[in-house]
């Protein structure tokens, strides 16, 4: 039974965001699997809200490429497509490299300190890089320092789709390949070498992380 939504000043907005964040986390963490079908009624019961905020949250996730909605038919978590994943990683890499290049001259002493620490965080290459590519990681330091709202919005939109693939990866090969580039990036940026740091950022994505797409190649997927 859905909880009736009444009272507070702008309740729908908040509940929609709550549902959105719950679903987003579940998709990134792999609790909801790529290709898994989503039923409105189940989500309503799970989160305890009515249909409207659930549909709004699903629309938002669809705009991020995380959910596929086929009107009157079905809604599912978007399957991971290797070709799309390669394009996505290359594109995010371009944005990140640009931000690294142009934020490097703006870094503060505290930023440089945070960057050096980021290199040692995490138990293994996979967690260092996954955390690194979030608001809590090295990426956050550069994006905040540049202060360009458009880049920030694009990254917020496209990172989750990449993050869920990184999380779903069974092997550490791509992360092991990317790890030296991360070190090169941070060494160059903390030394004030903007172009060098940007090249390392591109390598991290386009030579390292992109190889993760190969893991998701299957002969012919039928997820339905």
């Amino acid at each position, binding site marked *: 039974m859905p909880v009736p939504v009444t009272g507070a000043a702008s309740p729908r907005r908040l509940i929609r965001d709550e549902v959105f964040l719950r679903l987003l986390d579940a998709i990134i963490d792999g609790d909801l699997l790529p290709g898994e079908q989503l039923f409105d009624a189940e989500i309503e019961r799970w989160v305890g809200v009515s249909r409207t905020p659930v549909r709004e949250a699903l629309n938002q996730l669809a705009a991020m490429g995380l959910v596929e909605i086929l009107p009157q038919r079905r809604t599912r978590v978007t399957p991971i497509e290797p*070709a799309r994943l390669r394009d996505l990683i290359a594109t995010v890499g371009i944005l990140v490299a640009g931000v690294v290049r142009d934020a490097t001259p703006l870094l503060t002493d505290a930023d440089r300190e945070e960057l050096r620490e980021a290199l040692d965080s995490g138990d293994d290459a996979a967690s260092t890089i996954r955390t690194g590519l979030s608001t809590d990681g090295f990426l956050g330091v550069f994006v905040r*320092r540049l202060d*360009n*709202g*458009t880049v920030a919005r694009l990254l917020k939109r496209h990172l989750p789709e990449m993050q869920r693939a990184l999380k779903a990866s069974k092997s550490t090969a791509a992360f092991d390949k990317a790890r030296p580039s991360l070190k090169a990036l941070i060494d160059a940026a903390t030394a004030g070498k903007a172009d060098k740091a940007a090249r390392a950022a591109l390598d991290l994505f386009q030579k390292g992380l992109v190889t993760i797409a190969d893991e998701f190649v299957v002969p012919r997927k039928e997820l339905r």
Partner: protein
Amino acid sequence: MPLPVSDTAPVERRLLRDVVYNRLYDGILDGTLEPGETLLDEKLTAWLGVSRTPIREALMKLADIGLVEMAPNRYTRVAPIDLKAIDEAIYTTGLLHEQAARTIVPTLDNATVTRLDKAQKDVRKAAKARDLPALGRAFNDFFLELERAGENDVLVSVSEGLSPQLLRYISVWQNPFGVDDLPAALAGILAAAKDRDGAQAGDLVRELYAGTLKQFLEDYRRRDVDIAQSPVF
């Protein structure tokens, strides 16, 4: 990848939404719908002669690319001209175009070079005639043609999502691009493309867009204390 036929949305409905989307998109960019103008569902249904659903769907798509602002239960309006947002978007476009030039130019086929050539000529013609809307479109086409040759669908769709801000810029034309400098700048990039010289093309694109970063740093970027208070990310 084409989806199986059974999975596509009903055709009429999809087309209707796209028709509404294109009408509104054009109306906003050519100024028929003014910056800040309130968009009432009843007026739009009367103007376009369609029902509310495709209009709402089109409006949500337009909100997504920053041409429309929707505040639930308060208003839906044409996004006001925001010079900071425009500068930020054009800067971001520059990042994508620069890298596209570096990676795609070395492997360009002749057909793409011919299309780039045409777009550059259109830019020159429009600049001469002082036809700013045509200039904006031709300029935008030049780079989208280049990106499409790279076959990265995500890159193209992100760039297309930023295009409206670039096209809106023409209505408030000022720095960082000079109208008269554009044809020459694109001619240089075109020449590098013809030589398949990706490094040179990339450097020229970077130079072309350098003004957006300079202007951002001078006029729009906040002080570090304000950044700490409300970070963008």
